[in-house]
């Protein structure tokens, strides 16, 4: 179960490591679009865009649906959240560490002040 989730996170990050795919995802967060529209928008061949969307789809970041001859793409509800979640977790860990470090730094500053005073005496 845990491993399964890790694999998902890895795939999400792999999918998001490409600037075009991030752009596509940002675009889709704003509004759904067809592959043709996306290809035009990103100045790309239909085949090229299909590949990018395919990677995003595999990572669960995007859902596509074919109606007639048009394949419409929209954002998948969960994967993006998962992908950004670990960075946020990581940030929270560091924030907790640094908040603690603030306290130690205050102690050190205080000690310097006292030492400075002693030296002057």
């Amino acid at each position: 179960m845990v491993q399964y989730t890790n694999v998902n996170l890895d795939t999400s990050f792999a999918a998001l490591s490409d600037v075009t795919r991030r752009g596509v995802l940002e675009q889709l967060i704003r509004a759904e679009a067809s592959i043709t529209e996306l290809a035009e928008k990103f100045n790309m061949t239909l085949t090229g865009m299909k590949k990018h969307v395919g990677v995003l789809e595999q990572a669960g970041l995007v859902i596509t649906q074919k109606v007639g001859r048009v394949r419409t793409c929209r954002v998948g509800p969960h994967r993006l959240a998962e992908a950004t979640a670990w960075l946020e977790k990581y940030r929270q860990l560091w924030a907790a560490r640094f908040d603690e470090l603030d306290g130690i730094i205050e102690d050190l500053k205080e000690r310097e002040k006292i030492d400075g005073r002693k030296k002057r005496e």
Partner: protein
Amino acid sequence: MAARKESEPKPMKNRTTVERKSERELIVMRTFDAPARIVFEAWTKPDLFKRWWAPRSRGISLVSCQMDVRVGGGYRLVFGKGMEFFGRYIEVTPHSRLVWTNDEGGEDGPVTTVTFEEKGGKTLLVMHELYSSKEALDAAGTGAADGMGELFGQLDELLATLGASGGRVRSG
């Protein structure tokens, strides 16, 4: 501890930011209200370092913390559940720069560079982690958080929160 009253006057905490700068790089930034020599001291003296590296607020603690802060010197941090982190220092420039390897995962582990930049009595700290490959960073991200033993519980909570907010885009 956690029941501290919200109304209690407390100085504003400086914000910690994390950015995946590229496929192989992660950057953590934070400003401290103290000169670089003080911040540097807290990063290089084991008795100080262990107090914040394993923050009480996260319920983690270090069983042992050995640091030989000089070029070629080693470090070893041992957490309660037998989890160990170790490596060696490859650059030590007092008050401005620390570089160390992370060898617990074998060869080709990430390299951590910490810079301390003093400006007007404050210090901007930048921690830069360079991984050998994109895959290594992907795996470490999940692995490290996992190692803290709480990723998935908190992930669930966060997902629930994100779900509840209807996927609103954060503003600012």
